[in-house]
């Protein structure tokens, strides 16, 4: 355990690298006199903010997203409010990267992130969770609105060509997968994300540039599943 920080030991701290990092990320000077509690708190806050954000888009990064997701699960388990999780993936992103270069790819990611942040409500959290993958937590989102919300996000992205160089635009689309948290029941972040990822995979395999939301409960049993379920010789003389 590191010893507790107090103002008297502050002189022995080495904040230079932290300050450089903040400066490089565009953070202005910290308020207050260096070494004081208030200054240290401002430094910590600035570092927390920096480590919660994605450097390229300024959106929440995967780390802070997972924290927010656990909090939302807590809330849903207690309040029973419906909450929707969406995962989005830029379609054929590799193509942009390969043919137009990585700078263009970065431009596309930034532009999509911007559209997402503009499209959702202030209470929703947009995060960049992977290379060309985004996630959005939408608290208090009634089940009936889920498809509309997802569709609005998809069309906004599709309607906004991205300028990758002066005068040069590319059209970008996203595939969207979504699932609601089970109300009242305490799920895990992992399970919830797995369910949305499954829907994203479905959206991709059904041709991309579309939204797939999990049906209310995955209680549907496919013919294929039934086939295997009754495959055993056990049932042959019972049916």
């Amino acid at each position, binding site marked *: 355990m590191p010893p507790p920080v107090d103002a008297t030991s502050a002189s022995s701290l080495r904040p230079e690298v932290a300050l450089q990092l903040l400066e490089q990320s565009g953070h202005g000077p910290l308020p207050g006199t260096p070494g004081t509690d208030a200054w240290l708190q401002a430094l910590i806050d600035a570092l927390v903010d920096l480590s919660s954000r994605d450097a390229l888009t300024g959106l929440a990064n995967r780390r802070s997203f997972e924290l927010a997701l*656990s909090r939302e699960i*807590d809330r849903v*388990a*207690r*309040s*029973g409010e419906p909450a929707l999780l969406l995962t989005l993936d830029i379609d054929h992103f590799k193509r942009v990267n390969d043919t137009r270069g990585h700078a263009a790819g970065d431009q596309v990611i930034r532009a999509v992130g911007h559209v997402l942040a503009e499209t959702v409500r202030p209470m929703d959290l947009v995060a960049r969770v992977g290379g060309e993958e985004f996630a959005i937590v939408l608290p208090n989102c009634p089940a009936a609105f889920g498809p509309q919300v997802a569709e609005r996000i998809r069309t906004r992205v599709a309607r906004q060509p991205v300028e990758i160089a002066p005068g040069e635009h590319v059209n970008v689309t996203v595939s969207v997968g979504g699932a609601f948290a*089970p*109300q*009242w*029941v*305490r*799920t*895990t972040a*992992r*399970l919830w994300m*797995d*369910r949305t990822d*499954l829907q994203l995979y479905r959206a991709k395999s059904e041709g991309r540039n579309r939204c797939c939301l999990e049906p209310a*409960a*995955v*209680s*549907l*049993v*496919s013919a*294929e*599943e*039934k086939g*295997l*379920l*009754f*495959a*055993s010789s*056990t*049932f042959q003389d*019972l*049916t």
Partner: protein
Amino acid sequence: MRGSRAGVDMNSATQSGARVTAVTSGKGGVGKTFVTANLAAALARQGERVLVLDADLGLANLDVVLNLYPKLTLHDVFTGQTRLEDAILPAPGGFSVLLAGSGMIEYSRLTPTVRDQLHEVMQHVRPRFDHVLLDTGAGISDVVLYTVSLADEVLIVATPEPTSLTDAYATIKVLATTQPRRLIRLLVNQVQRAGEGRAIRKQLQLVVDRYVNTNLDKPVMIELLGEVPFDGAVRESVIKRELLIEHAPGAPAAVGIAAAASKHLAG
């Protein structure tokens, strides 16, 4: 993460007191309530303090199975007309019951009030018993899912009929994708021959492995708690509204349930 803060809900397997088992089935009419009542009686016979809570709020029929005409029910507790301890009644078979009572149809949807009340009931009964069996409603409604989430363990009752197996599988699937629980117990009722329960467990596990577990980071395991043979004595006991385990302890179905109870006690 669970229980780390004051006021978090109690979807917890770590609380002291009773082992809480939710008994559910997917499909109705597979003998879920019959199994629950007789399992409770079998546990009571082994000296355990057992409570059966009729959590089939919309369509309760534990009172019918047990031939009880309760004056006080969960409905009276929920409406503030009686204290919870007064609604816990002795049942034939040496266990206690908390019956839903008619009028509970209004609770068949999970509202914040119902949720809080169920939560409170669970907190009250946990320290007072060794085992609590929650007889949930059929189907996969939000009340059923919530009730199951309150329990430490879940037991699915199924029969070898394809419709029952399909619904049992659908229940497992929904539980697997919405709750962190990874062990699901199975009791196969009305088997036609010895070993059928084992075969059914194996087949369910096979389908779960192929279609459910591939999408999970920790696989769902199905464990067979027991099989209960098809037995004419069951129908007789149901019609007479008696507990099979009390009135015909030597009947094959009663023997099957007693064996399941022993396995339940063994962990």
